[in-house]
């Protein structure tokens, strides 16, 4: 019912400059699922930042005679609580250490594809037909270019390093952002506030970055969080096919793929890192839903503290 939102009543006073951090935390607390997810993601990020520093040695300590140790042996030291891998290294410690590469690959690939794809999409959506055509054909080509071939090319010519994998995955994901950004831009550029900005004399750059981008961005961020999951799985699949990251580098996807031969005998080897992937992507999805609401001023009230009275 539209009447509710359109009530022409005076709005309650609010403090002069609201503290954005406090406000955000409050909004987060009001969505419990998102809160738990953020806590989980923070733990993952902490693992990524400090895991390799603290646990590198533990995680690479091999014990061939104690390989594939079963999980939940709480008499062992804590890194072994999830069991040991095929070389007797503690799985829990390895998952923590692997968080760094995993997050780096996923975040790096998503970040670069988001930035490049969005930029190209905005240009394609807002400028001349020629540029738009050129960019769209490029997107077609990238989409039809098999990511596997790209991976083999890049990793053959350069090295199978983590950063090069980021390049491969980033390129393959560009069209997603490009097409979305373009489609949204085509729609948003017709909105009246864009015309209002034109009438004020705003430059093309200002219109794109100050007016169109903020409106388009939440959609792209939502896709980006979903893409996180996609990139992690793609990285895992590349490892499975033997053209992704190779040991001694380690990621969750690689761990899943390395554990695959042991599925019938030591299921934990690929289950735990797989679970890490699933939980991370699930959290990202929940956070992205929250963020979509929090980034939209018209929706934000749903998350703001329920005030005692409305006018």
């Amino acid at each position, binding site marked *: *019912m539209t009447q509710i939102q359109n009530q022409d009543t005076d709005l309650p006073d609010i403090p002069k400059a609201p503290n954005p951090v406090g406000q955000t935390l409050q909004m987060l607390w009001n969505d419990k699922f998102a809160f738990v997810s953020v806590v989980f993601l923070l733990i993952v990020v902490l693992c990524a930042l400090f895991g390799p520093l603290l646990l590198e040695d533990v995680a690479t300590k091999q014990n061939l005679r104690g390989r594939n140790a079963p999980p939940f042996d709480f008499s062992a030291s804590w890194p072994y609580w999830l069991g040991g891998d095929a070389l007797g290294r503690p799985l829990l410690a390895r998952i923590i250490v692997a968080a760094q590469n995993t997050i780096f690959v996923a975040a790096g690939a998503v970040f670069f594809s988001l930035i490049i794809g969005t930029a190209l999409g905005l240009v394609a959506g807002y400028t001349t037909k020629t540029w738009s055509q050129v960019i769209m054909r490029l997107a077609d080509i990238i989409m039809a270019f098999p990511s596997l071939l790209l991976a083999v090319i890049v990793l053959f010519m350069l090295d199978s390093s983590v950063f090069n994998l980021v390049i491969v995955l980033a390129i393959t994901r560009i069209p997603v952002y490009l097409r979305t950004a373009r489609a949204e831009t085509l729609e948003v550029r017709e909105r*009246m506030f864009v015309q209002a*900005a034109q009438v004020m004399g705003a430059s093309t750059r200002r219109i794109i970055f100050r007016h169109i981008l903020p409106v388009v961005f939440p959609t792209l961020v939502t896709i980006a969080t979903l893409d996180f999951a996609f990139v992690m799985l793609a990285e895992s699949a590349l490892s499975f096919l033997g053209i992704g990251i190779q040991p001694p580098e380690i990621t969750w996807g690689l761990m899943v793929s390395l554990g695959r031969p042991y599925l019938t005998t030591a299921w934990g080897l690929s289950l735990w890192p797989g679970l890490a992937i699933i939980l991370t992507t699930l959290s990202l999805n929940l956070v992205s839903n929250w963020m979509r609401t929090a980034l939209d001023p018209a929706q934000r009230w749903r998350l703001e503290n329920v005030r005692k009275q409305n006018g």
Partner: protein
Amino acid sequence: MGDHLLDVKNLSVDFHTTHGTVHAVRDVSWHLERGETLAILGESGSGKSVSASAILNLIDMPPGEITSGEILFEGKDVLLMSAEDRRQLNGHRIAMIFQDPLSHLNPVYSIGFQIAETMTAHGVNKGQTREKTIELLARVGIPDPDTKIDAYPHQFSGGQRQRIMIAMALALKPDILIADEPTTALDVTVQAQILTLLEELQEETGMGLLLITHDLGVVAEVADRVVVMNAGQIVETGTASGVYHSPQHPYTKKLIAAIPGEGDMAEPLGSGAEPILEISGLSKHYGAFVALDDVSLTVLPGETVAIVGESGSGKSTLAKTILRLEEATGGQALFQGQDLIRMDANALFKVRRDIQMVFQDPTQSLNPRMSIFDIIAEAFVIHPEILAKQHWKARVCELLEQVGLKAEHMYRHPHQFSGGQRQRIAIARTLALEPKLIVCDEAVSALDVSIQAQVLALLTQLQDDLGLSFLFIAHDLPLVRDFAHRVIVMQSGKIVEQGPVEQIFDAPREKYTRSLIAASLSPDPDVQAVRRTALRKMQEAAV
């Protein structure tokens, strides 16, 4: 008690939102008889549509909740019926039409399908529906119904779509038709036709008509009785004529006082001054379609020039062309002697400060993701020569106060304001650039009458204080009558008549102008009755 066809008693509806509980309607009672037309009059947010939605079970529960009351249809309380029984009533015994027929018709199905569906949903054999649908379309005045039955909603004009909605609603000859703002988005001439159609159909079928509207003119035209609502409560009931002539409640009085078209008309300005804007021979073609055809006009400093016309007359295209949002096909538009049409980007950037625009829909013209401060201060970001950065805040406060808002509003976002407040923000934004000419494209059309009056008063005051010129584009004649110095009437991209406001309203030369004026509704039921007779005669003469 089952005397009335429909009897709403002590109805209260709440909406539970995270924001708190909103009492949408409180303790509302009214009734409707066969053959009678009852109007529920109220502004947006008054809760005028809620009881109608409750009748048809259109309220989602939750978040909605009916906390008390009963709705008796032929003596039976529909609120106690099963969902299936209520579905049987909908469309069959009680039907409804809505404000915006384009969005209320399913865009992906043919109109024939959608009309026939009403019948099949209530047990009519599929084989008979097509014939009946064609009959209905013919009855509501859709030309060529045999072929148009397979057309889609977007292929019709606004008025035709509303006729289709009516055909759909009346397919099963319901006992009650609820019409929720049926003519709000339509041109005056089309509005008159639709209302006439509704009246005719009511005579034919003897149905009860419940009309929900914010427009006293519509009430005057069709209603027998009227219920006035404000903030969820009924403030006044009575006959249409009784309420208009002797309103009891202060709200009703305020509402009637705000109605435009009754005050003194402005004197034309002396013609000695140099025009600020001088348009000659302006034209704009979209392929073969001519949107603007050789348009010439002038605007003097401090003058308000209104452009009126129906949708498609080219008035908005004119505004966009002047502001270079569209490129003209030919002609020139001299602003202080410089031709806007052929200006290069640099010169245009400079002149942008002087010509501003207020758009029709403030919800869309304000970027929803920017705070009010950012929206207004953007003027200074784009044109830094206006003001040094340290003064921005103070100036924004000043501007907000100038348009009647508070300084602390500047950290909020547009969605936190009502429609009227948003339009003030839009005006504050244009004022930040200190323009000389403001183009208002239907700037107050979307607002409630009382808000319209406030905004127009604000514009008038700004004109007096700052000597601004306005190019005021509107379809609403009474508004123009109160506000403009001069009026330009457009039809199909051409100017058909222009002159001082008094001349246009009191002595229109052109037939088109006369029909426009005749079609606009008077809020006084007695005056409107006279006008109606006159208009009918005019139409008969035309046939």
